[in-house]
């Protein structure tokens, strides 16, 4: 257990300490003036814009995954044996496929010789090639396809536990479909729903690989900003300050989502293990 102290807690403490220092001329960290100047610098409109973009992208991804994922989880829960196995496989295989392979597959789909581009030129749609191959649309598509299973699996687990006869009962008692969804089903699957949403939102907020590979040069997000500060600009204190802000955002999201849904999600990951 001291493992966590040495490799998790102390390193996290170091981020906090570094965020208060300043960058040395040759990229090191100096602590001659300890203050919050890095945080003040983060309030610059450029960085607020990046923060806003990241929040927007993470929120849009979560909502889209919800819209696309709920019907999948529902279908998994209500379908019967031979079919169900195939459907589960269709969700679990992308989930356990190498992350970078999935991102690459999206890149291939959107590439200039890709089928989507061909389809658009056949239909004569006015979508410009540049906007398709890289930029916000590509990043969104990449995020949604990659994070969809993270929402579907915990949601499926909680719908699976639901007793469907309660819906019949609600109907017999005169509830409309909308009423029985919100008053009967939703309260009982809330746990899976919330942990699924958190498991999409949290990594999406700090995502680096998808915007880096699919976003082109124009899409700057928190994850890319932090990476840039650490690996290119070599301004570690500023990068550390941005990371602290990212942790704060995640903490807010977790607090909004309720206590410790991580355990439920951890178990659903385990359930999805082949």
């Amino acid at each position, binding site marked *: *257990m001291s*493992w*966590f102290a040495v*490799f*998790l807690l102390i390193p996290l403490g*170091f*981020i906090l300490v*570094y965020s208060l220092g300043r960058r040395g001329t040759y990229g090191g960290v100096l602590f001659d003036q300890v203050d919050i100047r890095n945080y003040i610098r983060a309030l610059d409109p450029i960085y607020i814009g990046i923060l806003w973009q990241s929040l927007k992208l993470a929120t849009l991804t979560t909502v889209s995954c919800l819209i*696309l994922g709920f*019907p*999948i989880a*529902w*279908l998994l829960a*209500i379908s*019967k044996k031979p079919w169900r*196995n195939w459907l*589960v*496989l*269709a*969700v679990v*295989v992308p989930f*356990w*496929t*190498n992350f*970078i392979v*999935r991102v*690459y*597959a999206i*890149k*291939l*789909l959107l*590439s200039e010789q*890709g*089928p989507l581009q061909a389809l658009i030129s056949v239909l004569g749609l006015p979508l410009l090639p540049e906007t398709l191959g890289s930029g916000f649309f590509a990043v969104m598509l990449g995020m949604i*396809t990659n994070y969809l299973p993270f929402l*579907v699996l915990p949601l*499926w*687990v909680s719908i699976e536990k639901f007793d*469907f006869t309660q819906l019949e009962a609600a109907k017999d008692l005169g509830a409309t479909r909308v009423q029985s969804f919100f008053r009967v089903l939703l309260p009982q699957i809330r746990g899976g729903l919330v942990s699924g949403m958190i498991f999409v939102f*949290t990594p999406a*907020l*700090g995502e*680096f*690989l998808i915007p880096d*590979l699919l976003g082109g040069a124009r899409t700057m997000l928190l*994850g890319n900003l*932090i990476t840039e500060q650490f690996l290119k600009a070599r301004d*570690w204190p500023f990068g*550390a300050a941005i*990371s602290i802000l990212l942790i704060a955002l*995640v903490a807010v999201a977790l607090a909004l989502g309720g206590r410790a849904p*991580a355990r439920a999600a*951890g*178990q*659903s990951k*385990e*359930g*999805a*293990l*082949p």
Partner: protein
Amino acid sequence: MKTLPRVSASSVAAALPGFVLLLVPLVLLVIRSFVVRSPLTGESEWTLHWYFKLWENGALTAALLSSLWIGLWSSLISTVLGTLAALSLARSGGFPGKKLLDSILQIPLVLPEIVMGIALLIWFVFLSVTLGSLSVVLAHVTFSVSYVVLTVRARLEGFDTSLEDAARDLGASSWQVFRRVTFPLILPAMISGALMAFTLSFDDFLITFFVSGVGVDTLPLRVYSMIRFGVSPELNALSTLLLGVTVLLAGLGFKKSGATPG
């Protein structure tokens, strides 16, 4: 048998867009790996050409080997550490700081990968640990242990402790109780935790990206730099092979357990 609602056409139709999004890119990848398009005529033909190219790509196979090696070590270490932690959490009643430990265990599950990556980078640089295979394994163990603990602990709390009591009453020493009763019962959970730890390690890009330095080249890192240079058809072949392994393992898993969640 549970009563389930009827699978209506509309519920299938509603789920369709999501399935398309999940599967179409992967199917495309598989098809592309078997096709060579002639630059002159623009005609395509089926071939295994890219698989041979992949075989000849020394850097890629070396990266694959180092990924397997790192995955093996980090899975081994995190399974041992995670099982020990789960045992102490589940078996020793309440000890001071147990609640705190519980919440610390959740941190790697929710912490953005990038933050863990830079935290470890700062720490390793501060300690002057040479960035290389060692730092990568240490980092991978850190994010895998929690998953092993969760898995093994769920199993420990799931079985009847009276089995252990009975063994003790029959005169077994505490080592014998562990060796003959507890261990065989938690072994499946340990294996599943180890598999998960291996997959997490084999998959990880971002944390490895920060803590690998110049010494190690894991498969995701190699693939990343190849993608940056442009779309390379050998990657289609590699991805198809990796996909095949995933499908195989998932299929085997289903055969054994039947598709039930939780």
